[in-house]
């Protein structure tokens, strides 16, 4: 079972009633798998802040609740989290946060453990799928017993690895009668001042729990060296050393225990801490006066594996070889038929500055389109263009756009658009509406008209929404039509008014979108000018001086046909 599927199973078995999340790799499947259980109410919220507050509401009403997000999602959810630490919970509440060391699919490599420390909430870190499920149930017990939200920290190699899991029955929890408790839940200063000492006291109790809890495992064998680690690093340590070294595996990674660490340190001659990303455990050891070796041997960057550890300890890595020929890199690319391609070509052709956002369309930054100028975080394109244009004035307004997907716009682009309308910049906002949350693997969102289970739901009308915000110039274009796109972009840039262009066409990978026959190159007509190559379609290559279209990839979007000056690209007959 995938780590994320095991988490979902844990939610089911723990009797969880409400799950609200926003998709984000590598956390997405937690909520998708949870939605397969009829006993759990699941939803995609517009963003992680909303999701966390939904889970808070469910907890306030007495139910066990959850939300899942990627590491940067916790930045968005940080506001409710920090005060939830003060209110504590009604029904147990757990946040699942998936870090992405090595940035397989992320814009930074932040270490979520800092949040648990800063918000003063307990954090658990499982090391495989079986533990992931068990830790979910432990987290709900801790949440209710210690009156606190709990964070479970995942990472790509736990979330997206499959290992075996034993299934148990669901624990049914009866919803208690609702009782008003303003001293606990209204965090105005007078009440919050009284809750803060509770938080500090709770941390001490949780630290005491860590001293005895089976979440932390001590494997005392050889006295020569001992390693303290958690999560996926435990697996790498065991892979390299087996049972030959002593290991303290931490499952409760915040607050960290003191006594068992001191005891473990005194048992071994030399103590090492192996942890990916930041030296959190190592700093704790320094604080309690225990000498150890950590980041002086290991990197602050990226993922580790068994060879990272072998190399650090001077153990030879298995013999291996590599080719002398340099293998060209294969970066991810926009898919054949991607509706964003035609629009990005227009931006690229006219050398328009484009502030980008988070989603598949970040790929428009790559060769040969080079269509983007920035990517920061969810929603930053819309807020950013306003600042860019306020700084650059009319000159920049006439050659700058921002691009943001439909889901990202709902997540946190809307507020930026409100700012554009309210504070008056003549910015041109392009919403790339492909009718789905694409990059994370096709999740529904408030604009698609369907909920997480695929049932019909209310759909936000983007045109009306933008108009009601105060944008008068709102228009829709088909990104497969290069001329229409070009005309719209050039016109809106020239007008001294804020405007929104909605580039609308569903993602080519959606099941209901049917591919057309692949186009083919008439080699007699093709002059090998490579105009069709400018759109960066992976289905097009040059073979023997002529354009060649790979029929296994082409979906017949016809964008390349519009690029060809000699009409050499013809519609297929299949």
């Amino acid at each position, binding site marked *: 079972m995938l780590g994320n599927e095991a988490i979902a199973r844990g939610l089911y078995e723990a009797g969880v009633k409400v799950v609200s999340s926003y998709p984000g790799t590598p956390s997405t499947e937690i909520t998708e798998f949870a939605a397969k259980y009829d006993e759990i109410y699941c939803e995609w919220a517009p963003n992680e802040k909303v999701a966390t507050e939904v889970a808070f509401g469910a907890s306030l009403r007495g139910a066990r609740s959850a939300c899942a997000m990627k590491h940067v999602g916790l930045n968005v959810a940080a506001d409710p989290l920090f005060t939830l630490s003060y209110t504590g919970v009604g029904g147990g509440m757990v946040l699942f946060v998936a870090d992405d060391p090595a940035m*397989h699919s992320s814009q930074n490599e932040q270490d979520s453990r800092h949040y648990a420390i800063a918000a003063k909430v307990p954090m658990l870190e499982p090391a495989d799928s079986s533990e992931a499920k068990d830790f979910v149930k432990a987290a709900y017990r801790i949440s209710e017993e210690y009156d606190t939200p709990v964070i479970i920290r995942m990472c790509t190699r*736990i979330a997206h690895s499959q290992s075996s899991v034993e299934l148990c029955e669901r624990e049914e929890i009866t919803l208690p009668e609702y009782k008003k408790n303003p001293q606990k839940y209204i965090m105005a200063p007078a009440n919050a001042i009284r809750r803060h000492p509770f938080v500090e006291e709770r941390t001490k109790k949780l630290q005491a729990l860590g001293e005895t809890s089976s979440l932390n495992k001590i494997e005392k064998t050889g006295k020569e060296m001992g390693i303290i680690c958690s999560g996926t690093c435990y697996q790498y340590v065991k892979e390299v050393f087996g049972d030959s070294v002593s290991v303290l595996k931490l499952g409760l990674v915040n607050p960290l225990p003191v006594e068992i660490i001191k005891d473990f340190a005194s048992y071994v001659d030399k103590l090492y801490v192996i942890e990916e990303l930041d030296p959190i455990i190592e700093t704790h050891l320094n604080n309690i006066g225990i000498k150890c070796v950590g980041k002086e041997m290991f990197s602050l960057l990226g993922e580790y594996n068994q060879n990272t550890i072998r190399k650090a300890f001077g153990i030879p890595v298995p013999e291996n070889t590599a080719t002398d020929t340099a293998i060209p890199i294969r970066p991810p690319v926009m898919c054949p038929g991607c509706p964003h391609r035609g629009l990005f070509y227009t931006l690229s052709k006219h050398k328009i500055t484009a502030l980008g956002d988070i989603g598949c369309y970040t790929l428009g930054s790559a060769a040969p389109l080079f269509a983007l100028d920035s990517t920061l975080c969810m929603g930053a394109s819309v807020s950013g263009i306003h600042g860019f244009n306020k700084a650059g004035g009319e000159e920049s307004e006439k050659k700058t756009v921002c691009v943001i997907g439909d889901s990202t716009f709902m997540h946190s682009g809307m507020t930026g658009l409100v700012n554009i309308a309210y504070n008056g910049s003549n910015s041109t906002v392009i919403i790339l509406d492909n009718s789905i949350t694409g990059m994370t693997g096709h999740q529904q969102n408030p604009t698609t008209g369907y909920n997480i289970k695929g049932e019909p739901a209310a759909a936000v009308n983007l045109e009306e929404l933008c108009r009601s915000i105060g944008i008068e110039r709102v228009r829709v274009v088909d990104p497969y039509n290069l001329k229409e796109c070009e005309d719209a972009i050039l016109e809106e840039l020239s007008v001294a008014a804020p405007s929104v262009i909605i580039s609308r066409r569903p993602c080519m990978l959606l099941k209901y979108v049917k591919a057309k026959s692949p186009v083919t190159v008439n080699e007699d007509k093709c002059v090998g000018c490579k105009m069709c190559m400018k759109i960066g379609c992976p289905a097009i*290559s040059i073979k023997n001086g002529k354009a060649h279209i790979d029929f296994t990839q082409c979906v017949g979007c016809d964008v390349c046909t519009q690029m060809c000056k000699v009409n050499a690209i013809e519609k297929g007959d299949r």
Partner: protein
Amino acid sequence: MSTKNIMIVGVGGQGSLLASKLLGSLLTDEGFDVKVSEVHGMSQRGGSVVTYVRFGDKVYSPVISEGEADVIVSFEKIEAARYLACLKKDGKIIVNTQEIDPMPVITGSAEYPSGIIDEMRAKGAFVDAIDALELAKQAGNAKSVNIVLMGRVAKYFDIPYEKWLLAIEKNVKPQFVEINKKAFALGYNV
């Protein structure tokens, strides 16, 4: 049994996740401790993708690093070469000879390497190269390249043929089972 390592490499969208799912389910049913590690998201969009399958009595790490892979199954020609350093000294490479140009080749900033299979052999690797795309087309669906290659993988493992077919039935959508069984047989017998 000591841990065995299979790496599946290819281009995002070629169906390597289904192949790893099939292997994972088959090996679990065979009673092994199995770990399968995948990467989803950004890298799936036409990028180079790699999936690790590890099985044995007790598997710890979910990933395979340099010099550890018993078998590398490559869905595309140069992807095998990209991960050659992960191959064990006496490891085997099963490679689909299909060429998919990466973006630097499409834009002309790099050339698609030639003679890469000979070079891997010269480096001492055992390379079993097959045209899985052609066989997939013969089976009736160009998308069954993944199952053709699993058929080839089956040659090198001591698991009965019928068990593989059961795993296909279990992991493939009912309407594609027949085509995939055909694809599997073509890969096995080529």
